[in-house]
């Protein structure tokens, strides 16, 4: 016994010595990545609480001399025209994103379940056809979709965006959810059906609650995608009162002067719903993306 306890730590420390270089290298890389991703956001926050003059100073003020929430007040004030616009854009984005999310869940859940559970003619072909769309950059579809939307009279409506976002969001939503359903043993439904449930009841009472994390992840994914989308919103909508946030925020750029604090405050508020959603539900999101990676 004593010999074992004597030799074991020595072997361990030798091993630790060898990987130390890699370990520190790894840490340095992580710190770099953290700064790389976090600094722009910190800068955004700091700029948003500066005055317009302070934001343009060089060398920059790292910490504003006179922090002010004036930009936020302006954006959230329904009395002033900037605030009216911002709130309207925010509302538009919320409507488009929520509609996209709800529709995408409504379509993706049964579709993913069908792909996971049933064999039907053309199943594999359809499944890959669903993914095929994701192989092309979105811009390729810009002109054809615009022509299509014009033909069916949807240009300058939020419907055109919801429809477009669905075509982009659904494939991955279905793919994500199918992975989830694949991991739910079919015997659970069989047991439920024998225990007296119809096929539909077995799905609603047993499978749906188990796939809740997947459904939540799918919903977040659709929401974020729709919330941040720029190019289609920019192309399909031209009336000011219909613009969504990513497009609307451009109004802070102008030929002569750019209201950087206002722009940053708007950007910050635009990221709030996404960050909040993500923080609340990140557990499910990570689980969904890694689902099926290892056997339980």
């Amino acid at each position, binding site marked *: 016994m004593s010999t074992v306890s004597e030799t074991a730590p020595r072997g361990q420390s030798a091993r630790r010595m060898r990987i130390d270089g890699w370990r520190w290298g790894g840490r340095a890389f992580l710190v770099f990545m953290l700064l790389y991703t976090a600094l722009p956001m910190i800068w955004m926050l700091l700029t948003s609480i500066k005055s317009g003059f302070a934001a343009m100073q060089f060398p920059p003020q790292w910490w504003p001399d006179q922090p002010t929430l004036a930009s936020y007040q302006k954006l959230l004030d329904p009395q002033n025209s900037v605030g009216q616009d911002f709130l309207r854009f925010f509302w538009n984005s919320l409507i488009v994103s929520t509609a996209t999310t709800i529709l995408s869940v409504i379509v993706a859940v049964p579709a993913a379940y069908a792909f996971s559970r049933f064999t039907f003619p053309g199943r594999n072909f359809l499944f890959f056809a669903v993914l095929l769309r994701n192989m092309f950059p979105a811009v390729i579809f810009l002109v054809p979709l615009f022509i299509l939307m014009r033909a069916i009279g949807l240009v300058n409506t939020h419907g055109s965006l919801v429809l477009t976002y669905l075509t982009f969001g659904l494939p991955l939503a279905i793919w994500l959810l199918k992975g989830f359903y694949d991991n739910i*043993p079919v*015997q659970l439904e069989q047991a439920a059906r*024998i*225990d*007296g449930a119809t096929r539909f009841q077995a799905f609603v009472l047993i499978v749906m609650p188990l796939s809740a994390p997947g459904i939540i992840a799918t919903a977040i994914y659709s929401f974020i995608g729709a919330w941040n989308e720029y190019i289609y919103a920019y192309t399909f909508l031209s009336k000011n009162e219909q613009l969504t946030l990513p497009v609307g925020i451009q109004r802070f750029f102008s030929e002569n002067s750019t209201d950087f604090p206002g722009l940053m405050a708007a950007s910050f508020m635009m990221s709030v719903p996404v960050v909040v959603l993500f923080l609340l539900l990140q557990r499910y999101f990570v689980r969904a993306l890694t689902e099926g990676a290892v056997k339980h």
Partner: protein
Amino acid sequence: MAHVVLKDLVKTYGSFKAVNEVSLTVNDGEFVALVGPSGCGKTTTLNLVAGLTSVTSGDIAIGDRVVNDLDPKDRDIAMVFQNYALYPQKSVYMNLAFPLQMRKLPKGEIDRKVREAARVLDMTQLLERKPRELSGGQQQRVALGRALVRDPAVFLMDEPLSNLDAKLRVQMRSEIKRFHQDLKATIIYVTHDQLEAVTMADRMAVMNGGYLQQYDSPAQVFAHPANMFVASFVGSPAMSLIPLEASTANGGAILTSAEGWSLALSPRNAQKVARATTRKVVLGARHSTIKLHKSSVAGAIPAKAYTVEPTGDVTFVQAFLSGAIVNISVSPNITVTPDEQIWLEFDQERMHLFDSETEMALEAN
């Protein structure tokens, strides 16, 4: 409880016949094991009875009702799955209550039945737990409880013991057997383990390649296997099957090996061999019916010991005869060493003879 009748049951997947003309009757209160190697169609047969798979042709009757087109929920059955299929998000209590809730029983009655089932299975203290907080044996018991809480006409069990460790498996085996005796339940039990079938079932249906090979009591299947497949599948170690050639000499029948030795048959065995469609027959002998001699004895056949496996109670000796492996069990106080010359004596009363063409057992009238 009810009886179950399968009549000419067929299930095909494309051109593959998973279940082929299977007909059998399970009597009211009987414990029947469907047993066979993987892919023999036993689980498919069970799923057909459960209604989880649709019938290609043939009929299934539970009680006096043909249930071919009924949903699983309307067949009045309960099923225990290999992976238990407990609802992970529900507590043990809710798992047991689910079948009753689906049948819209009043709350008070559900509570009474759930607690009664929990008491019978000795898991009252587990009712509030989630399935993942239970051990394998406890999960298995909850699965059993969920089946019995509803008092169904037939219990279907799909390899319910396969996921347990060896010790627990033996223990649950006797518990399920006890459960059957107490409830007088009709049970159809699928297993690939012939030992489970032999120890638990009133009758066992041996299947292979989608066909029903033999359907009889374990004792009968063991003593009178219908064909070479059943003979080699049931019993452990497997029955030794030695290919030989039949001929007559001095008015009696003998079996001759390509190795040169021959074996004289009793008149009864000679009768059996006479019924074969070919002169090539297969001699079957279980390990316990072969006597091992360390010196030459009249009627014994010389062989060389190949491996020797002591198990404590008995020692298993393997030898080759006519190219076939022969298992012999001997008392542990007889020492045999590998490559030692031994002589094997077959028990004429308890040997089996098979037609090598049809692979069917040869019977004397």
